[in-house]
């Protein structure tokens, strides 16, 4: 008997296959008799994937609605083909970077006027302060570029590329603490569980490179890890799991569990995967679970990545002047600078959404020294990325985004001394910038009041930013939806207006 089994590809009559056999037998019965038509009709109720007609409509519960939504994409001719989002986690202060407030120079230590605050809520960290003493920026500001844009002395390199930037000074958010604020920015909702921007884009537009993930995440090792980041920030939420962001790490294992284990040469890997894939397809034929499709696709992607990842991670071919442009850190894999260089290499390969995270912008106290360190670690590489993309002609169709989850207060948190102060979270206004495909270069959009406390002109909500980002990729943010738990969801929830004035 044992010999007999060896002739079969699968030992279908072993107990392990019992459940599957029951399912398959019933299916065969249904399709082979006159009830076949009826079975097809029932099948279509549960989604086309049961009969393998369309791989894109794999989520069983939604069927045609989902296919229709995907079929309509793209809604506009896109300006941007790729996105690199340099997320500055912690809430960078607008006072020490982009939002120049000269009026404050004479107001050191004065209490924040009630006419400005208007009774708005503060965080639990400074709500109990007896006074809210205003503090001017310790940095000098100068005008740069043909646009004569005011820039802080802490970002000398960014100042050199200021004519490429579209600086938005009137960003505002709803959340006042890190986790809900970052989650809000990345997923459009303050509570965890929704897909991130990169996942939506991967889901809606698919991949331009079959050998690398569509959505790649790089977290700096040299940011101060005072506030944590979670993998769910680049999670797929309720979208099929192949759309989640894949984190590339520094060191010899850039993608975890991708390398062959010790003692295995990998020679029969392909054969093993083909066999496994057949098993998975049998499983899928019986259950129609879209996650099985995702699993098959992930195994195949991982196999291709065993070649493509070491290739893209290698910086051996980069000339010296490139490392010099990105700064000394760029030779130290895993730093922000090295990640910027790696991001460029990924974008060259048409990876659609690359997201960097750099932590440590949360200066509740000791702000002057803290923010100087942060700028030093990021400024040169950020500017270098812009220059590098530009000279390679990639800024043509790549959108670069720089920004945190909120801004900081005009008043000092904690003790204010002549040389030292801190600033608390401030979601009412903060600065972000975009550059590259489809956005006007060398402009500043929106204005804050003299205290950078309230917005006085052209406010841009987080959902507006998200809508604009999707628009540049060719997506109408109101029409990219996904039905889950009985309702349709979208990145911008029920809000969001494209900021038309910053588009080319």
């Amino acid at each position, binding site marked *: 008997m044992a010999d007999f089994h060896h002739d079969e590809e699968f030992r279908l009559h072993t107990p392990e296959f019992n459940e599957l056999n029951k399912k398959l037998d019933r299916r065969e019965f249904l399709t082979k008799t006159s009830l076949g038509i009826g079975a097809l009709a029932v099948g279509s109720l549960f989604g086309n994937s049961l009969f393998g007609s369309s791989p894109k409509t794999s989520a069983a519960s939604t069927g045609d609605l989902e296919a229709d939504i995907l079929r*309509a994409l*793209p*809604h*506009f*001719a*896109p300006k941007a*083909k790729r996105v690199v989002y340099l997320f500055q986690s912690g809430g960078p202060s607008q006072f020490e970077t982009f939002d120049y407030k000269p009026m404050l120079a004479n107001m050191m230590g004065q209490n924040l006027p009630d006419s400005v605050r208007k009774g708005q809520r503060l965080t639990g960290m400074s709500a109990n302060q007896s006074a809210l003493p205003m503090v001017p920026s310790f940095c000098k500001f100068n005008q740069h570029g043909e646009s004569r844009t005011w820039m802080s002395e802490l970002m000398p390199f960014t100042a050199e590329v200021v004519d490429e930037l579209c600086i938005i000074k009137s960003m505002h958010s709803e959340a006042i603490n890190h986790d809900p604020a970052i989650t809000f920015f990345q997923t459009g909702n303050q509570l965890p569980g929704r897909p991130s921007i990169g996942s939506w884009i991967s889901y809606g537009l698919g991949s*331009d*490179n079959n050998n690398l993930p569509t959505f790649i995440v790089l977290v700096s090792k040299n940011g101060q890890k005072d506030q944590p980041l979670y993998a769910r920030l680049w999670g797929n939420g309720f979208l099929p799991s192949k759309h989640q962001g894949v984190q590339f790490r520094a060191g010899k294992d850039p993608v975890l569990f991708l390398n062959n284990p010790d003692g295995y040469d990998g020679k029969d890997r392909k054969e093993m995967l083909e066999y496994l894939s057949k098993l998975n397809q049998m499983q899928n034929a019986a259950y129609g679970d879209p996650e099985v499709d995702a699993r098959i696709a992930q195994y195949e992607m991982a196999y291709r990545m065993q070649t493509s990842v070491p290739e893209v991670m290698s910086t051996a071919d980069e000339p010296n002047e490139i490392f010099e442009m990105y700064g000394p850190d760029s030779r130290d894999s895993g730093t922000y600078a090295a990640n910027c260089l790696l991001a460029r290499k990924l974008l060259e390969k*048409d990876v659609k959404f690359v997201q960097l995270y750099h932590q440590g912008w949360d200066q509740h106290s000791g702000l002057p020294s803290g923010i100087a360190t942060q700028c030093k670690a990021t400024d040169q590489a950020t500017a270098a990325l812009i220059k590098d993309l530009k*000279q*390679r*002609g990639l800024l*043509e*169709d790549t959108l670069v985004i720089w920004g945190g989850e909120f801004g900081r207060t005009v008043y000092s948190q904690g003790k204010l001394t002549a040389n030292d102060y801190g600033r608390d979270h401030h979601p009412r206004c903060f600065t972000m910038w975009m550059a590259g495909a489809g956005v006007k270069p060398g402009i500043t959009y929106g204005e804050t009041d003299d205290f950078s406390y309230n917005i006085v002109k052209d406010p841009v909500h987080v959902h507006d930013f998200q809508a604009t980002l999707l*628009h540049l990729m*060719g997506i*109408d943010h*109101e*029409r990219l939806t996904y039905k889950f738990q009985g309702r349709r969801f979208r990145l911008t929830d029920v809000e969001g207006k*494209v900021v038309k004035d910053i588009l080319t």
Partner: protein
Amino acid sequence: MILGNITTFSGHLHPLIVHLPIGFILLAAVFDVLSYKKKYENLKPAVSITLLIGFISALLACLFGYILSLSGDYDKAVLTHHKLSGITLAVISGVLYYISTDKAKREVRIPGKLFSVLLIGLIALMSYSGHQGASLTHGNDYLTMRTLTQQVREKPASVQSAMIFEDVVAPILQKKCAQCHQNGKLKGNFSVENLQTLLKGGKNGPAIVPGKLTESELYKRITLDPDHKDYMPADGKPPLTKTEVQIIKWWIAEAGAAEGKTMAQLKNTDSIKTQVSTYLGLNNVATSSGDDNGFTQAINPDIPLQADTLLIARLRGKGLMVRLMLKKPVMLDITLPANSGVKMPAIKNDLMSLAKNIIWLNLSGNNFTDNDLTILKSFTNLEKLRIENNPVTDGVSGNIAALKHLEAVNLNETKITDAGIVNIKKNTGIKRIYTWGRAAK
């Protein structure tokens, strides 16, 4: 509220159930008439039971019909006729059933022929009642010759020749409102049949007040928050698109609710032309499926609306990445991955067949020569071109300069000299030329 929903729900069952008595009573009559023939004599006993089922289902239809009538919004006169005839029908079918039972036959004997005549009379009554019911649902004129003779307005050839009310506003209202606001089903006592009924309005006053948006009930209702109880279209029926709302707004405010006027005859049409042409499907903009959300893109009209999907699939099969930038017209972004090893002759014909659909093209890093790239001049709609990192020389510059829609060209790391660049710059439409690291390799 839940109770309300249950009654609305069961009311909606009326149109379903009402077909049961129609079928059964008809069947009873057929059995009865056939049983006069010797061959079908044995059908006679079935008449009674068929009538019973017809009677019971008629009762149910009456009950659900009554619940449906509670929702109001029907033409009163027609509703009364339908109601009375329906109830009479149920009662008579009950009486006839009683007569047909064996028990009754022992007490009151009526001749078989008379019974048959009564049964056929019942069918006449049923036809009448059915017609009244259909009038309620589909409007009084649903069965007139007008449906046959009605002229379908021809689609206007241009925005200027389109009649704002007849070709644009009226069809919008017909599509989105007429189901509840026309003829038999006059919800809110309001009809969108023609301009007069619109000006007259319904129980909340005029629907349209020329030139005055704030007084126009119709405009108010379609622009409310969709969750508002007065929002129209109600009950989750498909709302008007933004384009449609903009058109109606303009028609009331700017065109004074004009009738019988073409766009050419009206003033201040600049602000609405795009929306009208979008609605009529006259322009080439990216609005093939539904709402454009207020964005209209300037798209080169020379780009073909279609492309051969088989060719696209074939190129993909050969390792090229073909990205669909837009579906209507079909705009393609084609990339041959660097170092692909693919030779130009292998893909030349496929690319040429899609030439006018190619808008972005990336052939960088594939060891192509001037000779390989002579095909460039066929891609007349190309906007972005990447040929960096190829051993091409000035020979290719003429082909690039000939591309009149080209905006950006990437010549990094090629052998093109300054003379070649000068040649390319003769095409002043090209805004960005990337020339980093030329002749470096």
